[in-house]
């Protein structure tokens, strides 16, 4: 088994921490992601990650913890999307694009200043593409707590949220408020994006959010099984990514490994492709 589990894998503290964090983040992402896909909000998810980038870059520049930066950015992004969301469809896309452009430009500035004025190196890589192994242990309890909180909230609102996503009129008739639920969910999604950014970087976090969920929805129709399948796929991809990344340091003599995020994203892509292919085959008569 040595080719898969390189020596010292489970003995290494950063790896164990990464496995723990990865587990919870992937789980949270899977649960929230299923709703994101069901509500057809994949693009919103992508937009949130761009603004999360700005937050993360700003935090790196001013020496704040990355998690705070990502979360602030994502939540601010959620606020901006709400405001823009009042517009007509085509104008909304343009406005979103322009706002994202501004936010991304700001990220560029923050990252540049980090690189040139502070002594920390590799900030760009860390913020954009993640480095799960170097998350400081002080942050782990906070991340775990936030993840757990998101899961609890989702358990409470799952049914009303599903109803208002699928049929807002019926939901309103039953006394729910689709608008409030929608806004609350956007905040939940933003928080989840912030967590994902911690694990695999802000630019790539969309993959963890919607990938396993979309794959699960291709092979199952009920909400409960979709959540279970998505969680299994997401956690499996994350753990496999961690293991492979650790292994990859031993592949080349230069000891330059490949990032966790690369493996995670590729695995998620492959899983989705497999599920989509299976679905296409089974629906062809």
């Amino acid at each position, binding site marked *: 088994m040595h080719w898969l589990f390189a020596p010292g894998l489970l003995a290494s503290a950063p790896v164990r921490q990464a496995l723990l964090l990865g587990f919870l983040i992937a789980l949270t992402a899977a649960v929230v992601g299923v709703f994101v896909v069901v509500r057809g909000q994949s693009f919103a998810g992508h937009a949130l990650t761009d603004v999360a980038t700005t937050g993360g870059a700003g935090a790196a520049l001013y020496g704040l913890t990355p998690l705070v930066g990502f979360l602030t950015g994502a939540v601010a992004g959620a606020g901006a999307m709400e405001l823009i969301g009042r517009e*007509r469809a*085509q*104008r909304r896309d*343009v406005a979103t694009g322009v706002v994202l452009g501004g936010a991304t430009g700001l990220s560029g500035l923050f990252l540049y200043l980090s690189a040139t004025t502070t002594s920390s190196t590799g900030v760009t890589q860390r913020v954009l593409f993640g480095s799960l192994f170097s998350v400081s242990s002080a942050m782990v309890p906070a991340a775990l707590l936030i993840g757990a909180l998101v899961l609890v909230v989702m358990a409470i609102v799952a049914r009303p949220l599903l109803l208002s996503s699928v049929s807002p009129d019926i939901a309103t008739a039953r006394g729910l408020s689709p608008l409030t639920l929608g806004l609350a969910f956007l905040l939940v999604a933003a928080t989840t994006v912030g967590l994902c950014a911690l694990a695999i970087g802000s630019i790539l976090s969309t993959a963890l959010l919607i990938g396993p969920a979309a794959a699960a929805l291709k092979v199952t129709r009920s909400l409960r099984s979709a959540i279970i399948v998505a969680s299994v796929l997401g956690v499996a991809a994350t753990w496999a990514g961690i293991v492979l990344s650790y292994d990859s340091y031993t592949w080349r003599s230069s000891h330059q490994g490949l990032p966790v995020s690369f493996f995670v994203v590729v695995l998620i892509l492959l899983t989705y492709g497999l599920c989509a292919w299976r679905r296409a085959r089974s629906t062809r008569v």
Partner: protein
Amino acid sequence: MTDTPVLAVSNVTVSFDGRRVLDDVSFAIAPGEFTGLIGSNGVGKTTLLRVILGLQKTSAGTITINGQPRAKAHSAIGYVPQRVSVDPDAPLRARDFVALGLDGHRLGLRRRSEESRAKIERVLAAVGAGSFADTRLGELSGGELQRILIAAALISDPSLLLLDEPLANLDPRSVQEIVALLHRIAQDFQVAILLSAHEMNALLPVMDRIVYLTAGRCASGTTDEVVQSDVLSALYGHHVDVLRLHGRVLVVAEPSDDVDHLPSHATLNLDA
């Protein structure tokens, strides 16, 4: 029909997933004829129009336009779709869109000639668009947009103007206005008109020909020839009554228990 028909539909059949949406449909339209394609929703009107426009392939049958095969006759038909969604911010005025009807398929950005600009003015006047010709396309009301679409289709000198459900969702007064407008255009511009609708009464005063479509089969001829109890009963495959009252026509179809016993050839072309 002595002249070459503007449109000749011959034995057109279209099948989706083994289901025949159009079944051996044939009819012809003479130059300048005002034709109504009448049928309720789902009988195949839109499919038939798309076949005529070359947007839908047939399993069998041919379409000729002015005697030429469909594939070669792109500019002979002016198409007015039922619905068009336009970005409200798109930077062009109503008259710019009409101009595209003239040269939207040509390369280059050459300035339009005097003659072209005169044509644009002429069709804008013909549809009564003088007051909103310079408004942004996306800011037009539904009725205004419809008139602009008609103008854009008209400007390329088509032999046939084809409109998909232009009267749907209109109040009775607007229906009358559009029908009168189309009748005027048919005469002033010497163009044949084919429009689809699910109700024939508003068109009775102006229709030269009716193509009555049900479950993929059709009967074609003048209203007096086609809208008769025996003709429509044969078409539907079960008993149908036709009532005429105060110049209006009402087709009453009894629900039938066995819908399987339908005649196989129910295309009746009463001009042959």
